[in-house]
Structure formats: structure tokens, C-alpha cells
């Protein structure tokens, strides 16, 4: 069985952002980039399947500029067998449609049985790429997957997907299939030293040249901007004791819970 895990490099959660000169996104100067946390769950699920079934080959694929190599190596450290990098120019905005097209091109003739994605990426939070890849390849898919089992003949995957307020639904898909993995499905591991050493030396497959998009079908990004400053929020100032006393007074004035 062959599993493709698509991984993305995103800014660390605690980052502070500035706009880039184009005004359409954030500047990557001084930002520490990491593996998208949601993709860690997707990769971990692929690793768990390999442990369960044996005979599973996992490829980690990412798109982006040269800096993206770091997270492909991270995926190798965590246990992926192969790493592939679709190289894009620096400061190049990739929409989900264009990303999906490149992934589709990569998958051709490679015979992946499962394509895994994190449910969203933490930077743009769109959750579109996985389902779009599935639609382009005409494969069945499920989003927000919180558990999976694969049939003995490797023909079917049965998943639970998360609905609202704790409800779930069970969906059955024939392979090959695309899943977007919800956070919390597993507990992502830490790399072993042997895998770290292997990852450092391993050669990545680098793909250059992007598949052009058919014109006019993609949403056009006009600008990025900071949200307006918070309207009414008041800071409670003073030393700790004073802050606590003030807050208790506010709670008593505004509510009857104290």
C-alpha cells in the first residue's frame, strides 16, 4: 500500500506578523516556520497504518520555496519513507486551486492508495486543497476524520468523521481515497534518533516547474490587513491584588454570579 501525506510549512503559532511589500500576505522575514500541526496528525495516522499493516510506503510531499525542505525532512525524521518537494519561487502566492493541481500532477502514475491531508493549514485556514485534489482525481473523500479502519482486502476504508457538538458519522470509501485528518485523532510521536540521522542524509525528490492554471477560475486575493483594534475591551490594570479586586467588583456590577 502507498500513502501520500501532503504537508505544509506554516509560521509558528506564536509568531507576530508584518505585511509583506505586496500587501497581499505576511512577510516571512524573521518568522520561524514549522510543520503544520494538523499535518502532523495526518502523518502520524499514516505511520500508525504502516505499523498496523506492514508493507506500507509513505511519501511526504510539500509545495513551497526552498525553506520548505525543512519540514519535508521533519516528516522523514518522524518516519516517512520518501520526501518530495515541488519547488515554487520565493514569495509566490499559491491558492488552493493551484496547489491542488500540482499535487494531482505529482500523483499521476504513482499509484497512491491513500492521500492524507491535515484538515486545514494553520496559516490560511481554508481546508480546500484535500477535497479539491479528490474532485480533480475523481476519488472519494472524507473530511474531519477522527478514526479509520481498513478492510482486510485493502479495498475499503471506513472512517468516522466529526460533525458538530460531539456527533459523528461513519462513512465507507473504496480505495484509492482522500482523507483530511482532524486534530486529536492520535498523539503525534517524537522522532527517534535513528530516523533523525537517516532524514539528514536522505535525498529528496525535487520537482520544478508549475502546472499552469486554467485562467479566471480562482479567487483573486486583493490584500491582507490587520483587524481593526478591539472596540470596547478595557484593560484591568494594577498589581495582582488590585487587579483581582477590580475584576471581582466588575463581575458583581455586571452579573449576579458572585
Amino acid at each position, binding site marked *: 500500500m502507498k500513502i501520500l501525506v501532503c504537508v505544509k510549512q506554516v*509560521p509558528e503559532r506564536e509568531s*507576530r*506578523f508584518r505585511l509583506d511589500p505586496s500587501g497581499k*500576505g505576511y512577510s516571512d522575514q524573521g518568522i520561524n516556520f514549522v510543520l503544520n500541526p494538523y499535518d502532523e496528525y495526518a502523518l502520524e495516522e499514516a505511520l500508525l497504518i504502516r505499523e498496523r499493516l506492514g508493507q506500507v510506503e509513505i511519501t511526504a510531499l510539500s509545495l513551497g520555496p526552498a525553506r520548505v525542505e525543512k519540514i519535508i525532512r521533519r516528516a522523514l525524521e518522524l518516519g516517512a519513507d520518501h520526501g518530495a518537494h515541488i519547488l515554487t519561487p520565493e514569495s509566490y502566492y499559491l491558492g*488552493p*486551486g493551484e496547489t491542488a493541481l500540482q499535487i494531482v500532477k505529482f500523483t499521476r502514475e504513482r499509484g497512491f492508495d491513500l492521500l492524507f491531508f491535515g484538515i486545514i493549514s494553520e*496559516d490560511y*485556514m*481554508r*481546508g*480546500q486543497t484535500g*477535497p*479539491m485534489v*479528490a*474532485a*480533480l482525481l475523481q476519488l472519494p*473523500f*472524507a*473530511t*474531519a476524520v477522527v478514526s479509520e479502519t481498513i478492510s482486510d482486502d485493502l479495498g475499503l476504508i471506513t472512517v468516522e*468523521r*466529526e*460533525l*458538530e*457538538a*460531539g456527533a*459523528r*458519522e*461513519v*462513512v*465507507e*470509501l*473504496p480505495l484509492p481515497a482522500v482523507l483530511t485528518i482532524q*486534530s*486529536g485523532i492520535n498523539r503525534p510521536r517524537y522522532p527517534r534518533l535513528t530516523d533523525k540521522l537517516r532524514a539528514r542524509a536522505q535525498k529528496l525528490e525535487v520537482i520544478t516547474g508549475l502546472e499552469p492554471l486554467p485562467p*479566471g*477560475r480562482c479567487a*483573486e*486575493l*486583493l*490584500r*491582507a*490587513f*490587520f*483587524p481593526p483594534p*478591539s*472596540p*470596547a*475591551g*478595557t*484593560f*484591568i490594570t494594577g498589581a*495582582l491584588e488590585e*487587579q*483581582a479586586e477590580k*475584576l471581582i467588583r*466588575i463581575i458583581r456590577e*455586571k*452579573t449576579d*454570579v458572585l
Partner: protein
Amino acid sequence: MNKDIWIIAEHFENRVRPVTSDLVAFARKMGGEVKAVILGHPVKPLAEDVAQKTGCEVTGIDSPGAAVYNSEVYRNLIKKLCERNQPRYLLVPHTPLGWDFAPALAVDLGYSSISAVTDFNPENSTFIRQILNGKLLEELKSPPGCSAVVTVMPGSANPEPDNTRPPGSVKILEFESPPVKTRTIRYLPAKPGTVNLKDAEVIVAAGRGLKVPERIELIRELASLFKRGAVGASRPLCDQGWLPLEHQVGMTGATVSPKLYLACGISGALQHTMGMKNSSLIVAVNTDRKAPILQVAHFCVNTDLSKFIPVLIKNIRKFRG
């Protein structure tokens, strides 16, 4: 292509979900003719309910395959409808059903795809959405002449009360079940939880800013000081396994509006704030003066929670005698 805005109504267990009215309100804010589409089997009572509540003209798509949600059925049947009469915008709720089929439907139709929008700017016909956990916003537009599938965050527009307008007309179209690869096997309702967030008067909620799991005890202790106090959590905290998912507030978790919501170490991404922004009094305890939670908080204590909460607990105890 015409100027119509279609909204896809959402229903569940034979009831139209309130997010449908949010979507209608959002579409009306955009201007243009608003029509509702609903899929089901039997769909007539649901379609009539939408027409009654929202005053929209409703097209009900009736197909045995649409008796329960299935992404392939939804895509296939909505595509058939769009091929007859192409709308400018197709608005879908950004919910576990909507985000599931919307991007793939956009691919099927050759429409542009914009997800999780919170606002529309009628001057430039642009959509606004959050990125980077709410630290930045972006403005996007569907190119001229290109229809778009847009998922709209629940709560992005204030719906009119039900039955404000005269009921809209209802048209039912019947379709055979399209062939599908994906089979929906069964629905698993939420396990009855021991955590009752809905009825709590005070929710003390914890986020990643806790930094270490031992501090959950501080949160529990603070919540226990109130008669109807409960412990809430952000999704990432639950994912780390520090609290079970039944504590989660926000998208895919509980929507709450207690008298007091104390957000401790929660940065306040939209996925969280959409579930608690209607609380009567919101107080954030956060060391980041620019955290998005301050967009909804009434008061903020800009102090390390591990220092502040013990003092707050002590003072509440003292106050109570």
C-alpha cells in the same frame, strides 16, 4: 450567468438548522435576488419550512440518495441545478457538512472557491476572511464573469426573526439517486456528557496559554467557586489531551452564552469565539495585548494566568467569607 445568490440550506434530523437563517441574512446583505436550495428525501416539508421562516423562494431537490447527507450526492445534484441556471454566488454554511462538499463542488462546476468568510464588502464585491488564527484578515474576490462557491462562517450576519416576511414560493424537483462511491453508514449522536456547558452560568475556559497541564487544576478550582460553574476549553487544548473534547467551546464544540465567560490563555481564533461571543460578560486573561480574543472580550487582565488566577481565587474566597 445571472446575478442570483443561492444559499444551500442545512438540515439535520428533519429540522432546518438555524445557520440557514444566518446564510439568508448574509446573502441579503450582499444584495441581489436570494434563493434557497435544500436537498433531502422527502424534502417538501423542509423546503416549506425554509420558505416560511425566511421568505425566500425555495427549490427543494428530492432524491432518495439525499435522505442523509452524502458529499457526492450533494455535488451531483447541486451541479445539475447550476447547469440549468447558473447563479453568481452559491453560499454554503461553513460547517462540517458545508466545508466537506463546497471545495469539491467548486472544482466540479469550474467556479472559484472561497472558504470561511465572515463579511462581504458590497463596494468592491469582495469577501473578508480571517487568516493566521485571526491575527490578519484577507480580502478576496471572485473574478468578473466567474461564479463562486463561498462558505460562510456561522454567525456572520444577524438573521431576521423567523416569519418576518411573507412565505416564499416552493418548487420541488425530483431526481434519481446518482451513483456514488462514498457510503454513509450511520450517524453517531454525541455521547451524553457529564459536562453541562449549556446550562452553566459561569464558564472558566482554558487555552494553550496554560502552558502546562497541571494548571487545569487552577481552572477547575476557579470554576468550582461558582454555583453553576463549568470548565470550558479551546480545541487545541483538547487535542493535546489535557481535557476531553466534551469541554470544547466553539466550532465543532458547544455554543454557549453564560453570564460570565473567563477566557484564560485563549488567543481567540474565530473557531473559538463564534461559540462564546454572545456571553454577557467576557473577561480575557492573556499576556498578549494583541490576542484576537480582545476583539470580543469586555475586559482583559494582561497578566500571566498562573500568577493571577491564584490571587483571584483567594480574593473570591475572602469575599465569600
